[in-house]
């Protein structure tokens, strides 16, 4: 679990790891009392695995058990017998009966006695089972370790010495033996390590390889034969450098770099599962375009970070840069659950920008990193107070946009929705004031009851609002713990039982009225209650409601009566079904208006600070139904040197400044590592979104620091960084690796070669379209189309990305789930990918197009050469030429088995309604699905309805103009007989009707049948060549359960009656009479016929050389 670096490059890191292990030892053998450092070092060190096991045991077994069974009565809300069981410290301190545990001595621990029901009987309602008792005993035996408490104590492990938390250094460029190899500073760091490892760098890659690699890295597009030829003609060093500059300056550079960033930003065009809203953002693309534009403009990365968190709060940011806030907003919606939405935002900001896994501290202090649960909820407060307005700003500026009527329509639809929300909010809040007494009683009666905070309840429109009832419950809990003066009488009176209430209440109140009583009660309330002498708790509630203005606890800002608008989740504001209808309609109306907007009226997904700031509380175990203490909004305390003040407003601006500070030890390192990974396929740190204590250390820590500080010095310029990397000898190595080097460094962590990389889904598709010749290179704009639709010609980054429905094919090619921030894609090779390459229409059509171009060549060899140029951007070798020529020759042979016999049977539908006894307008069924012919992909087809035909029969269409028709065409003039049985076997409905037509005229039937079968034989029919026999079935009355079976056989009859038996036999032997059976000869569409060149083109498009970049 805890990795120990093999190469302690700085001695202090070694010390820090030691210290961490020793702390772990303390966790295991926990000495009672203070954590005296000498005592720590006296402890025998235990292995990291043991420490991890202890943690796991505590987190998985002990803590849940305590939380489940004990803490509801012995926690921060209630402390029965003065005892808390929610921390080790509290347990050691104990309650009225003394300490509840003696570490390592279960038999002396009150806790164990109580759960064994030997002294106390705890929990009171239901005894723990044997296994649970065993868990607690074992825990006490282990010394009652409580890992979180130790981790929370920053004086513990020396986090400050963790490599990623130290200030970024400016390392000197190291010396190397082979001074000829390095091209720039990067190479000295790399070679220095290679020499230490006894490895040598690889040869430089050939110019052509390098050209393809650089263009793919920078713009994600294939390099043409022409381009490669041109680059290769110039002196290599200057040509490659010019080539790099050319693509760094291309507008497509922003697209390629943006796609990497969109993985981090979990970009999607939809919200995921939502309840009321439409799932389409409609405007997510403005964020995507912002990202593309920012990279193209080489916006300083620190500025890019700040804008994405706080563009609305920064001075001098152009209006259209508000779209940057999409970084926070484009995440999933978890059915509008605020807690989850905020968790997602904390995660994308902390892992995405700083490589810190802060989301791990949602339920407890981080197990490994210096992040406390308080730090998490300090950031929770930031995002809780950053709201998405219903009115999104127009990218072109509201004033300009609103000249357009469509913008006005959007604006007013949003206004209508917002007013509806506000009106409902006012209604609920007004009512909560008017019905205060009811809320008090309802909340009181639900205290200690099952908690409904976590689920949505459906109410009637005149019910109390469930969210407010929860708030009142929380409020009553708070006032009880704090001994609030106004509610002291309330809490005292609630302890009386109903029967004796009237009798005992005055005594309780008189006691409270005495000035020297143990707690001071609000005298106004006590006097009023004494005066009114309430007979029931309900009348007490009534008095509280009347005294509203006089009671500060009720009128103050902490009262549930002051619940801000932003505090409501939409389902909590509209919990009853009748009120949900209009919300749905207004949302749909707004979405419809937004959908109609042209790109000029694009809106931006933004945030703004809440009108009324809400304070955030720590949720115990991450559960919103267990709020604990309030925490101020601030930066994680471990990083106090970056920001040690409580935030103002939501705090996004201070947060952004702390993250984007050059003093931040993480931000620059993290982005530099991401960029390195984009060019090498492997980061210097292999966990790009986690630089915490658990992350493996960088392979080249000094290089990482060198690049990070250099990057900051260059004004956070990503293009400069890329230029430096691409210019290095390290990057320009070839990717060939011999077995011995591979054995010594299979992952290539020392960079003795370039890593071979597979085209990701997007660049593969873009390459196919580019080769096909119809890639649309327009930059920016709304997302449109599916990336696998043939008609979609835009670059893959613009394909509509629906997080509710990421296509299986894209997932197979490791396109990441847009639900979570992804720092690194998988790179797999699975059969599903091969199926796509072998069979998908995109592959076949690309092969078709590219082969057509080469087909014009004079000779097969020229065609092959052209194909290689187009697909692989090189000429074939002699061996390849021979091999592929042989292939073409082989494929040109007409394959004997695929010559189709005379077309005898056809599958169609026809009209028998227009003219009696005649079949009009036969047409073939257009779609074959592998089993049957039908109207289209789905059944029923929109135009043709239910009609289909398969090998055994079929189903007629919905009316008499769409009867099912099996057609046989006579290959010669001949006389035939027909035999067969028409069947129908479904009980419901009214059966079907069959008829046989010859040359368009009815010759047999109608056969009307329902759950039976009828022989449909015709003895002799004389036909001319090309005339037809049609077997026609219609629905016979109603359309229901009309499947039929029919497999007619047509037998050729001798032209003239035989003169004698002998002659007849001889005749038959010389010219055998033919017969045709429908079922036996049923066949679907032919396999497609590829030309040999198309077939070869597809082979090249499937080749490893095409799919991997050297």
């Amino acid at each position, binding site marked *: 679990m805890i990795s120990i670096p093999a190469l302690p490059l700085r001695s202090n890191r070694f010390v820090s790891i030691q210290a961490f292990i020793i702390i772990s030892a303390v966790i295991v053998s926990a000495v009672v009392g203070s954590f005296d450092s000498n005592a720590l070092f006296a402890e025998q060190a235990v292995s990291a695995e043991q420490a991890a096991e202890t943690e796991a045991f505590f987190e998985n077994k002990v803590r849940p058990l305590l939380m489940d069974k004990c803490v509801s009565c012995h926690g921060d809300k209630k402390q029965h017998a003065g005892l808390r069981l929610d921390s080790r410290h509290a347990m050691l301190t104990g309650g009225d009966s003394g300490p509840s545990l003696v570490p390592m001595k279960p038999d002396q621990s009150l806790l164990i006695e109580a759960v064994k029901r030997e002294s106390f009987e705890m929990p009171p309602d239901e005894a723990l089972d044997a296994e649970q008792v065993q868990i607690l005993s074992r825990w006490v035996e282990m010394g009652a370790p409580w890992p979180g408490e130790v981790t929370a104590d920053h004086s513990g492990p020396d986090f400050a010495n963790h490599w990623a938390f130290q200030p970024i250094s400016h390392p000197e460029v190291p010396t190397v033996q082979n001074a000829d190899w390095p091209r720039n500073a990067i190479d000295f760091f790399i070679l220095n390590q290679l020499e230490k490892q006894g490895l040598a760098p690889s040869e430089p890659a050939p110019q052509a390889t390098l050209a393809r690699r650089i263009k793919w890295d920078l713009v994600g597009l294939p390099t043409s034969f022409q381009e490669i030829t041109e680059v290769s003609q110039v002196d290599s060093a200057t040509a490659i450098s010019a080539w790099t500059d050319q693509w760094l300056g291309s507008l497509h550079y922003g697209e390629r770099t943006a796609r990497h960033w969109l993985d981090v930003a979990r970009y999607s065009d939809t919200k995921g599962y939502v309840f009321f809203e439409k799932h389409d953002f409609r405007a997510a693309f403005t964020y995507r375009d912002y990202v593309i534009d920012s990279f193209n403009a080489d916006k300083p990365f620190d500025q890019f970070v700040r804008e994405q968190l706080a563009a609305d709060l920064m001075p001098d940011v152009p209006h259209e840069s508000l779209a940057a806030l999409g970084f926070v907003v484009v995440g999933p919606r978890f059915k509008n659950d605020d807690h989850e939405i905020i968790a997602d935002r904390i995660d994308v900001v902390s892992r995405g920008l700083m490589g810190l896994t802060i989301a791990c501290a949602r339920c407890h202090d981080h197990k490994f990193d210096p992040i406390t649960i308080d730090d998490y909820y300090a950031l929770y407060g930031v995002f809780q107070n950053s709201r998405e307005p219903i009115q999104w700003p127009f990218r072109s500026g509201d004033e300009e946009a609103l000249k357009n009527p469509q913008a006005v329509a959007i604006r007013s639809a949003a206004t209508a929705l917002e007013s509806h929300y506000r009106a409902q909010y006012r209604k609920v809040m007004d009512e909560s004031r008017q019905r205060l007494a009811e809320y008090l009683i309802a909340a009181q009666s639900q205290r200690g009851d099952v908690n409904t905070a976590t689920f949505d309840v459906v109410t009637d429109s005149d019910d109390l609002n469930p969210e407010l009832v929860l708030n009142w419950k929380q409020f009553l809990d708070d006032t009880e713990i704090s001994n609030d003066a106004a509610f002291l009488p309330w809490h005292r009176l609630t302890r009386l039982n109903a029967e004796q209430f009237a009798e005992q209440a005055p005594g309780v109140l008189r006691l409270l009225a005495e000035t020297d009583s143990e707690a001071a009660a609000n005298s106004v309330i006590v006097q009023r209650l004494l005066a009114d002498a309430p007979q029931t708790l309900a009348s007490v509630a009534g008095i509280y409601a009347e005294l509203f203005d006089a009671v500060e606890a009720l009128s103050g800002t902490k009262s549930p009566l002051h619940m801000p608008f932003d505090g409501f989740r939409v389902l909590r504001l509209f919990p009853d079904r009748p009120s949900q209808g209009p919300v749905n309609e207004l949302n749909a109306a707004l979405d419809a208006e937004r959908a109609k907007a042209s790109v000029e009226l694009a809106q931006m997904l933004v945030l703004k600070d809440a009108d009324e700031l809400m304070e955030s509380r720590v949720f115990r175990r991450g559960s919103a139904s267990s709020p604990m203490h309030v925490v101020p909004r601030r930066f994680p305390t471990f990083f106090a040197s970056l920001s040690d003040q409580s935030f103002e407003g939501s705090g996004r601006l201070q947060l952004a400044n702390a993250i984007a500070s050059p003093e931040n030890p993480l931000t620059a390192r993290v982005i530099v590592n991401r960029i390195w990974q984009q060019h090498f396929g492997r980061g210097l740190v292999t966990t790009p979104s986690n630089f915490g204590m658990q992350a493996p250390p960088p392979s080249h820590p000094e290089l990482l620091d060198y690049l990070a500080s250099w990057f900051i010095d260059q004004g956070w310029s990503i293009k400069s960084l890329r230029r430096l990397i691409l210019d290095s000898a390290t990057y320009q190595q070839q*990717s060939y690796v011999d077995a011995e080097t591979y054995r010594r460094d299979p992952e290539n962590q020392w960079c003795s070669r370039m890593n*071979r990389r597979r085209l990701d889904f997007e660049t593969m598709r873009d390459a196919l379209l580019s080769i096909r010749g119809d890639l649309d290179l327009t930059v920016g704009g709304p997302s449109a189309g599916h990336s696998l639709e043939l008609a979609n010609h835009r670059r893959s980054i613009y394909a509509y990305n629906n997080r509710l429905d990421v296509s*299986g094919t894209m997932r197979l090619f490791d396109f990441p789930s847009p639900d979570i921030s992804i720092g690194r894609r998988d790179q797999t*090779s*699975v059969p599903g990918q091969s199926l796509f390459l072998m069979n998908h229409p995109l592959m076949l059509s690309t092969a078709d197009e590219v082969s057509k171009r080469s087909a014009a060549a004079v000779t097969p060899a020229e065609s092959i050469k052209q194909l290689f140029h187009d697909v692989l951007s090189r000429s074939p070798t002699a061996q390849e030429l021979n091999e592929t020529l042989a292939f073409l020759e082989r494929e040109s042979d007409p394959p004997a088995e695929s010559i189709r016999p005379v077309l005898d049977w056809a599958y169609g539908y026809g009209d028998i309604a227009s003219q009696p006894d005649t079949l009009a307008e036969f047409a073939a069924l257009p779609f074959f699905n*592998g089993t049957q012919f039908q109207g289209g992909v789905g059944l029923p087809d929109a135009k043709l309805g239910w009609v289909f035909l398969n090998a055994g029969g079929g189903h007629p269409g919905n009316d008499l103009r769409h009867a099912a028709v099996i057609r046989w065409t006579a290959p010669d003039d001949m006389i035939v007989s027909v035999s067969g049985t028409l069947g129908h076997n479904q009980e419901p409905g009214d059966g079907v009707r069959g008829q046989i037509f010859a040359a368009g005229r009815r010759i047999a039937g109608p056969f009307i049948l329902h759950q039976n079968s009828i022989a449909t034989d015709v003895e002799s029919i004389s036909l001319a060549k090309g005339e037809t026999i049609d077997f026609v079935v219609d629905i016979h009355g109603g359309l229901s359960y009309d499947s039929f079976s029919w497999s007619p056989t047509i037998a050729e009859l001798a032209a003239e009656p035989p003169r004698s038996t002998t002659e007849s036999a001889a005749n038959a032997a010389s010219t055998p009479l033919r017969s045709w059976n429908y079922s036996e000869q049923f066949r679907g569409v032919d396999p497609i016929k590829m030309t040999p060149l198309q077939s070869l083109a597809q082979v090249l498009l499937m080749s490893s050389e095409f799919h991997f970049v050297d």
Partner: protein
Amino acid sequence: MNQHQPNRFDLPGVPAQNLWRGNSTCNRREMLMRSGMGIGMLGLAGVAAHEAAGSTGLHHPAKAKQVVHLFMNGGPSHVDTFDPKPALQKYHGKPLPNPALPTERKTGGAMASPFQFSPYGESGIEVSELFQQTAAHVDDMCVIRSMHSDIPNHEPSLLLMNCGDNIQPRPSFGSWVNYGLGSLNDNLPGFVVLCPNGVPVVGSQNWHSGFLPGAMQGTHIDTGKADYSQLIENIHHPQAPDVQRRQLDLLQSMNQRHLEHSGTDPQLEARIESYELAYRMQFEATDAFDLSQEPAYIHEMYGDSLQGRQLMLTRRLVERGVRFTQVWHGGGQAWDHHSGIESGLRTLCGEWDKPLAAFLTDLKQRGLLDSTLVLWGGEFGRTPVAELPSLDGRDHNHWGYSMWMAGGGVKGGHVHGATDEFGFAAIEDRVHVHDLHATMLHLMGLDHERLTYRYAGRDFRLTDVHGTVAHSILS
């Protein structure tokens, strides 16, 4: 490249029955050994070395090799099917003596089950008339009457049942199982999801792979479509097989030469192998979905119905070694009987009873039931009290409900746990969804606490920090 060796897959239409039991896995294993990769690494080249800190291989001997999860989405009523509650008769129309637990909507008094319960089998377990044919197998079934979960809303409960978390998009159960155990048949997906006519609430999240590799996600097949042979993406090969084979021969020759010029690269080897697997998959997968190969008596046994076809197909997939098959009732949430529950249940149970009985019979007669863990149930149960205002339906109930398992090492003819006397809340031997997952993984030979995946800085599990194996239901 060695020239392509003719094999049985060259001729489409050769019945592929039992092929998966053949030595193709061995060949694959050898291939992987040769190329220096472990089994299971093929699909994961490049993954395992980075974030996958997980396990492959068994933690202990497995009782079950495969899972079939029959998902009655919407929440089937337990008090009308597998959990008889005579006390409801007494209180019918009256409030329960204990206050009703909070659920999604408002409820009124008790509602007796309109259906007759009778004892079945040697075990005499009582089952409602709605499942009388299925109940003939009750001695092979372990009925868990003490299921409970967290929230009475569909979306979170579906996610919990499928992915072990109410809200977060975590990897699904089937993905975890495939991640942990790998595939039994390289020519078919390891996790197949059958769902006719649309998708359930929260859609493909129910079977997605989250942060696990994309290849682990469920392959969704809309069994409402007429043609079962074309249901896997890109499985339909528009070219004649011999033409495609010759293409692949040329391709592999080029790829092999490319590999030789590239030095050592397991990725390239994997790519070469994946074409061969894909080529074979075209025939085996098509074959697996071809129900016309089933004899008439099997068709008869399952019945000519959607659910009958789904289960017949499921049996064919089990036979071919699909590790995890999930069968949904259908799109939407059919079993959500807020009103009209009597006729609603008659219809839906009527659709399932005969096919279910046939499915269990069929698995048993082929000797597959012992190694296949069949799970039946929904995302929660329903209230013993009637829902207002119609009073002829039941609300969602996560406090207590029933599921049953059969085969795969569970105790047959066994009832585990109980709800209170009205069937509202599980009170005895309670089984949370996490416990169910832990128990099922245990039967598969996996320790739910050790089946982990390192992601975003921590080791994730299907059961998160929860889950206890219910040992008493293991045979």
